[in-house]
């Protein structure tokens, strides 16, 4: 979530609560004879407050399962997750008295740190990555449709080249896709999703050899590269120079297609950055909760 002035009330509340907690902790440390301890009444209070903040923050995952229930908007929950998660940090630190304790509490502290830091990392990413993606990938599409769109681009490229040089047996997948598309469109002729495809040329013009070659050696492999990465596409400058007026326009379109394919690669990469930190943050938070449950029950029991 973008941190902007909407967050001011939350930030103010967090600062106030943290200051109050710090003041009370300092007083507590001064007063107790043997130093702070998680088992003393103030220590338990800090622990309860900190854990409840953690639990509420963690409920975000559950909230997303019942999105349409009116339990408070997603923006509210996100802000709560963020700020209560941050607020939990001082409370848990005070609860621990800045000591690591035995194996279980040490593990908890490590997990807590990793979860919090990964969350902050993700938050930082969210401040600038969306803008970066918007700027760098004007031809963005839906992540779940990238495969489909990329295959579509391959088919488009084949269609363009074939319309100049004739059908190419090597491009079997593209041909299959175009054929399937034609079948679907024939079944529903009134449907608006018809894409008018150019037919493959009957004969190849004499000067189109380089086009065919470039397509087979560079363009097609580039468009079909999997996984889609962000490396630049083939160099069309030579081809543009020797292209005849007939099919130069198609080369320009090929350039655009390759550019779009490259942008999809960029999108994949940026999307990964935007989302894969969640694979650290969320699962470890589940581990954290399981172990916290053990800690709460057993520390109180003893």
């Amino acid at each position, binding site marked *: *979530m*973008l941190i902007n002035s*909407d967050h001011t*009330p939350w930030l103010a509340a967090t600062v106030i609560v943290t200051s109050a907690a710090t003041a009370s902790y300092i007083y507590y440390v001064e007063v107790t004879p043997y130093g702070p301890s998680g088992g003393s009444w103030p220590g338990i209070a800090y622990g309860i407050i900190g854990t409840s903040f953690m639990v509420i923050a963690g409920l*975000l995952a559950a909230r*997303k399962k019942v*999105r*349409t*229930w*009116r*339990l*408070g*908007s*997603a*923006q*509210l*929950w*996100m*802000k709560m997750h963020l700020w209560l998660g941050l607020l939990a940090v001082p409370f848990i630190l005070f609860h621990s008295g800045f000591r690591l304790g035995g194996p279980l509490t040490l593990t908890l502290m490590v997990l807590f740190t990793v979860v919090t830091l990964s969350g902050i990392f993700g938050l930082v990413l*969210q401040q600038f*990555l*969306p*803008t970066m*993606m*918007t700027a760098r990938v*004007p031809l*963005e*599409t*839906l*992540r*779940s449709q990238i495969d489909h769109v990329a295959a579509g681009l391959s088919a488009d490229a084949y269609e363009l080249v074939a319309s100049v040089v004739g059908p190419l047996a090597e491009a079997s997948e593209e041909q299959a896709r175009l054929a399937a598309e034609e079948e679907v469109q024939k079944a*529903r002729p*009134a*449907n*608006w*999703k018809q894409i008018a495809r150019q037919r493959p040329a009957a004969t190849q013009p004499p000067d189109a050899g380089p086009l065919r070659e470039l397509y087979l050696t560079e363009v097609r492999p580039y468009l079909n590269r999997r996984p889609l990465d962000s490396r630049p596409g083939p160099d069309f400058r030579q081809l543009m120079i020797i292209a005849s007026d007939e099919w130069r326009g198609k080369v320009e379109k090929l350039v655009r297609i390759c550019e779009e394919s490259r942008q999809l690669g960029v999108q994949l990469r940026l*999307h990964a950055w*935007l*989302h894969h930190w969640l694979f650290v943050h969320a699962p470890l938070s589940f581990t954290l909760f399981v172990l916290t449950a053990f800690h709460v029950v057993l520390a109180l029991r003893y």
Partner: protein
Amino acid sequence: MVRQELVARHPDGLPGKWLTPEDLAELDFFKGTKRAFKIKTATNFAPTAGKPEPGIKAAVRREYQKGDVLFHAGDYGSTAFLLLEGTALATIPERAQAVPVAGRTPRSLDFLGRMFGRRARPTSGGDAAAAGRLGIGEVSAYASLACEAPPPEQLLRPGDVFGVDSCINFYPREATVVAAERCVVVEMLRSVLDTVRDAGSASEQVNSRYRTAAIRWQLRQSGLFRSLSEEQLERLALASELLTNDSEAVRDDAIYGEGQPADAFFLVRSGTVKLSQVKAGGELIFGYLGRGSAFGFENLLPSRETPPLRLRCLSHPTLFPELDLGARTTFGRAASCEVIFPRGETGIGRKHCKIEERDGEFYLTDLESVNSTLLNGERIQQAAITAGDRITVVDYLFELTRAPRPTAAAAAPPRFASARALDNVEIVRIDAASLASLAQENPRLLEVLTEVGQQLEAAIYQRTSAQRSLDSELVGLNLYNSQNTLLIDLDRCTRCDECVKACSDAHGGVARFTRDGPRFGRYLVTMACRSCTDPKCMIGCPVGSIRRRGSLEIQIEDWCIGCERCANQCPFGNINMVERPALAAAAGPPSMQATVCDLCAGYDRPNCVYACPHDAAIRVNPSAFLSAADLG
């Protein structure tokens, strides 16, 4: 949402008697339509299995008592009414209703108190009387005008067809209709009305009645003519005609061209009109006018050309005659100047100063003279000048005045810009001469027209170039027509798809929009229904299942037969065909059904916005919002 409801929602929930084709055939109005209805029987009037009533209620007979309200102005509706018995009164409200739009969710400090409030009351169009947010092209209802007298009521008699405008154009109801005594009406869906308009013997009657009524209603509804008496209104109506894209006067969607004599005045009833000038470098678009606007004021207002400034010499009137300033006026001793000083005046330079016209303004520039140029007594290097200023060149004193206006008004001044229909339009064309003579009779009318014309000038002709290019982009994206769509702020969106998931959760597993689409600055205009003012999707639905019920959102009822016409007609591809799981339905259920965003009608607010964790999704009137937004 699979709900089979009454054809039109009445506040009092009056039931009606469902009519079969046979019933309809008995009415005069429907003569000649039997064959057409026969084709439609299977779809329009098919009874549900095991039930006595038809499953699809395309026509229903209702009774009203005296004082019952049939519909309110501003309500949405998709039906037309035929009055069989009794009389009703139609009144036009004081102000044109603006379309209610769902805005951005408020700052989310709403705490978890609002739990489990899943199905709140749906949004209604009628209460939004005060919501005044207008989009591009919608000129406000001349709020500066005081209403002289309450608008007159129109009496509806048996045989009259009313409510056609909403049925055809899907605009909110224009008037409030109240039963004056016990009435019996036939309320019909568009599919039934179209049958009559296309094939019935009553078609000509319906169409011409429609035209007549449309003109009169538009004249009444427009606040411009409030000061006219009934008789004057009628005269005006007779001098008017209803133009559509098919009319002879409109060729290639051009209503009038730049430079043509201004012989008519226009009111836009529906659709959008573009005003522009063709310049050497391209087309200069002044603006877009939508429903409720008026244009063509040239014959009523003084010429837009700024009268030139006139230069007069006060000190040596005999030496210099009065001169109307042109594009460039140079002062000096050189012979090439326009204002030439005697050669003996050595204090004055060969080229002493100049006056230039730029963008309608005049500027005085000193050309590095030795003895400088004074404007109103002060030395200047360069300054803007206007009527009343005095220029001093050494000993010579000049004064600027406005040239007097041409006294005789041109018979028909030329059009300042050309007007072109952007889409399907209905325009009321009023003959200029009749309007002028009425204006002379009724000075209040002239006042009103002048005031409104000046407002329009300010709004349209004086838009900055930035605003104009924004308008062009909005038009390019077809956003001027849209009333409410989902925009996503791409600087905030993390592409997490929560909005899509929420939409599908709320709609039985099928999302009603796609999180992709054209971009406008940093906003993504999603492929979600835009609630167009004149929705193309609704045209020609054979079963009338796509409609607006009582509010802004477009619904596709579950009797959709999957013909894909709406999907094909939507210019944005916002309607998708989805396989409907086979439910128990008689006579071979359609396997595909059209789905469209329905603004989450059953919820208190749209789920897409509600579920976006990063506050990136907003539902707004796009043209109004994007015109004012910071596009980053």
